[in-house]
């Protein structure tokens, strides 16, 4: 499944938002969609879906700052 599609589907189901409410270029925290626990949930989702184990030093804005950045982080990890 497409990474972006899978991530957005995960966000919609777990954080009770509609797809059109998510700005793919903005921080999910800044948009009020997730809080700090949400970050932990997303990293757990990446681990279960793609086998990515995120260390605390990788949990930075460059990797988790938006849906597009998370997708790019997954793609980097897989390549």
């Amino acid at each position, binding site marked *: 499944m497409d990474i972006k599609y899978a991530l957005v589907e995960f966000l919609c189901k777990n954080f*009770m938002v509609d797809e059109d409410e998510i700005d793919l270029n903005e921080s999910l925290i800044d948009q009020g969609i997730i809080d*700090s626990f949400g970050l932990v949930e997303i990293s757990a989702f990446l681990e279960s879906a793609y086998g990515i184990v995120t260390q605390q030093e990788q949990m930075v804005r460059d990797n988790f700052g938006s849906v597009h950045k998370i997708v790019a982080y997954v793609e980097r990890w897989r390549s």
Partner: protein
Amino acid sequence: MSMDRCTRCILSGAFPGISFDENGVCSFCRDEIIASTDATAVDEARKRVDALFSQKGVRVDYDAVICYSGGKDSTYTLKQAVEKYRLKVLAFTLDNGFISPTAFANIRRVVDNLGVDHILFRPAKAVFNKIIRTCVFEKVYLPGSLRRISAGCYACISMVNNLALRLALEKKAPFIIAGFTLGQIPANAIIYQNNYRFLADSRKRSLDILKTQAGPEIGKYFLLPDDLVDSVTTYPYTINLLCLEEVTEEQIVAAIAPIGWQAPQDVDGCSSNCRLNVFNNYVHRLKFGYSPYELELSHLIRNNLLSRSEALEKVRKQPQDQLESVMRHLQITKDQLLQIVPVRK
């Protein structure tokens, strides 16, 4: 189908993203929406906790700083940390000025009976009250952060988390133990290790609003000093031990009675230590149309740890006299509260 409340759990029709079938059962109970509370995550967390605790240091003064509110859940968690996991703990309590006198007596008896060190921190009362007032009248936290918790509790717990992190770093304790239950937090967040700088950056918007209203000095409650952050090589793990236990409220109360815990009578049905909770719940209902405890209590119902009638009793036990007492302390009138514009989806 439009409903006031799910017929199986206690989620309200006002809860974001909810829908009901022809029997009045909500989409959360039908598992149309994944609530991230699966048993697999809990099993994995148990294994990780065992592995992490097996590596605990012998040369540190404390294995863990434990956030100890004096409520039944954190008392049980403290007991588990000391007696089951054999951790050397430093108990930490934030006195927000609204802790029930009975809860204070509980705290003293319990830490004495368990033989643990204890630190109490009380922020300046006028400043703390300004923080709570700001949470009432300003949009400090965005709605997505407030589905499991009221804004006032969010601010208070953010202070607890930050001060506990500071203590853990200063004492070089590798763990922070918190007493959240499943439903209060997602199952994937039982154990976590956050990047502080990213989180502090992400919380800037809410902290700026609080600072504008309550004064710039409140930064010390929500942020770590720069020199401490610069010196950190690794952050402690935060572990919510209670999430690993399948235990009913009745069993918790029975387990902590022998170490001196008694139920306070001057709190609402959803708290066992804090008199401010009734007020925070009231404001949350005004804004969102549902209790901030519905998600947590519904989780307990689905896991057969609480009956629906017991859960309803908890959310409905919101004593008016205590609400009015807290409002007087905060210098907030009912007319002011009625001007709050509901934020309902």
